[in-house]
């Protein structure tokens, strides 16, 4: 707030708060490396008696981890592709082509963001089942090819900042709207497209209710759902549960560290997601 030199008290408060927020994760990682006997006999010891990296091997073997991971990557990859393709097209239509009804439809788009998913959940489920998508990852991927209001909004805002002169120059060179979109706007929008891809990847990685609704065959489960199944069957094997949870969290944390800038800016400028 003020530019004066802060109190010692301020530092103390910051450190304590940081410990409170960091402790659960740190405790999870440390405990995931403890021998299972230690977790039973002396669960509150801070450090592992010995560092049991083999807990991770065991956890991966206890569930079809590789299959779950493959399904997750398929789901996330397909969804990122669908989202980036559809949302950039739609956002271009809303941002850079002037046509009748554009503003009205954009208003409707914004309104759909406020709709609770409950209202559409049941008919949507039955519709996708009718289309033969039940028990298939496609039930979760296909809808991403039809756009997402939040990401469309985000991309539209970005497209609006690109000077109209660039489009004009393209037109003079004989480009149509498609050419302007694919050759001028898309290459310039790399940061915004990365943000969308990043958020969609994380959303798919984390998605639990989608697989819960649409998937019944364990062979098709992604990690998020597989992990929950694992929890119910391995409730007494804390070391494996924690190792599995850590392993599931790690990629997201790594992604966050590598893309911190994009990540925080994306949240700060658009509200939220994730």
């Amino acid at each position: 707030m003020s530019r004066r030199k802060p109190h010692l008290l301020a530092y103390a408060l910051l450190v304590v708060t940081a410990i409170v927020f960091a402790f659960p994760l740190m405790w999870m990682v440390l405990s995931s490396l403890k021998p299972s006997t230690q977790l039973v006999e002396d669960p509150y010891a801070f450090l592992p008696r010995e560092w049991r990296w083999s807990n991770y091997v065991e956890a991966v073997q206890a569930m079809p981890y590789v299959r779950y991971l493959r399904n997750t990557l398929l789901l996330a990859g397909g969804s990122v592709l669908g989202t980036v393709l559809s949302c950039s097209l739609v956002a271009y239509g809303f941002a850079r082509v002037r046509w009748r009804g554009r503003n009205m439809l954009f208003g409707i788009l914004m309104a759909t963001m406020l709709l609770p998913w409950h209202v559409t959940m049941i008919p949507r489920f039955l519709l996708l089942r009718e289309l033969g998508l039940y028990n298939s990852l496609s039930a979760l991927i296909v809808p991403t090819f039809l756009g997402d209001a939040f990401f469309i909004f985000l991309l539209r805002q970005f497209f609006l900042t690109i000077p109209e002169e660039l489009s004009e120059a393209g037109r003079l060179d004989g480009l149509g709207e498609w050419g302007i979109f694919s050759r001028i706007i898309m290459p310039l929008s790399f940061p915004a497209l990365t943000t969308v891809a990043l958020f969609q990847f994380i959303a798919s990685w984390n998605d639990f209710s989608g697989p819960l609704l649409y998937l019944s065959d364990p062979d098709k489960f992604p990690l998020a759902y597989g992990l929950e199944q694992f929890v119910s069957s391995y409730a007494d094997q804390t070391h494996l549960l924690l190792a599995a949870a850590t392993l599931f969290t790690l990629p997201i944390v790594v992604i966050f560290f590598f893309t911190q800038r994009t990540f925080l800016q994306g949240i700060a400028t658009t509200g939220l997601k994730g």
Partner: protein
Amino acid sequence: MSANFRRNLTGFAFVSPWLIGLGLLFVYPFAASLYWSFCRYDLLSPPEFIGTEHYQRLASEIATGEGFGKAIWNTGYFALLSVPLSIAIGVGLATMLSWNVRGQAVYRTLFFLPSVVPIVASSVLWIWLLDPRDGILNRFLQSVSLPSQLWFKGATEAMTPPDFLDFGSKDALVLMSLWGVGNFMVIYLAAMGDIPTQLYEAAELDGAGRVRKFWHVTVPTLSPVIFFNLVMGMIQSVQAFTQVYIVSEGTGEPASWSLMLSLHLFLSAFQDLDMGYASAMSWLLFVFLLVSTALLFRTSRHWVHYQGAGR
């Protein structure tokens, strides 16, 4: 073809993926669930029109506090605790990060990190941290001579006087949601960065101390974000599902104490196959959210200050 017509066609072509989605994933489901809310529909036989029966059942459940009524109570309890606390903690953390200290980026990362943890993983983590017997938090409470709590296994509510210090499943869910407050914190932090320093300087000239500067400069300029947090927090609480499902293994037990609206709706639809009842519930929820969002917008005129709005 006239140029105008061509342009309209081009625009439509670009937005067509979303238009198809709007029809299939919004307009049709919207209309269908409204119709089914007046039907008996168990998926096995076609929907059968029965009038307002489901709505009457929902109304009577509100009156008796069972089923839907219970879910409303649980959700309301969760929202009324978690939303104001998340605002207070979000603003608090952002304020701390705006102090001119060394290592600010480290603190920011540590405060924010919990909010990127996937909700399935954080549910697993908190079930274990809050285990009534072996959990580390109860251990900590004991070490400072406070009573252990039942947390996710508890069917008490810290509302009524004798239970005031007993924390049950919903309190545990609140705690878990506050741990992930980082998203809002980042928005507050960004908004604080936009506050012109002249405002603080002017306040200082008027003799304002730290506290008054906070209440009279920081809070009013943050009010649009607080408002955003309030609306989003309300919508998110009503829709909270994954963590509620996981910590109660999809049951809302013990004693339906964490049976929140979205879980009740899910179970009514996909376990009891009572699509009509679930649809009616979803419409009531929708109307409730619509009305309360509108009301919040209305009150916002009195307490939300937009910078440069020229008023």
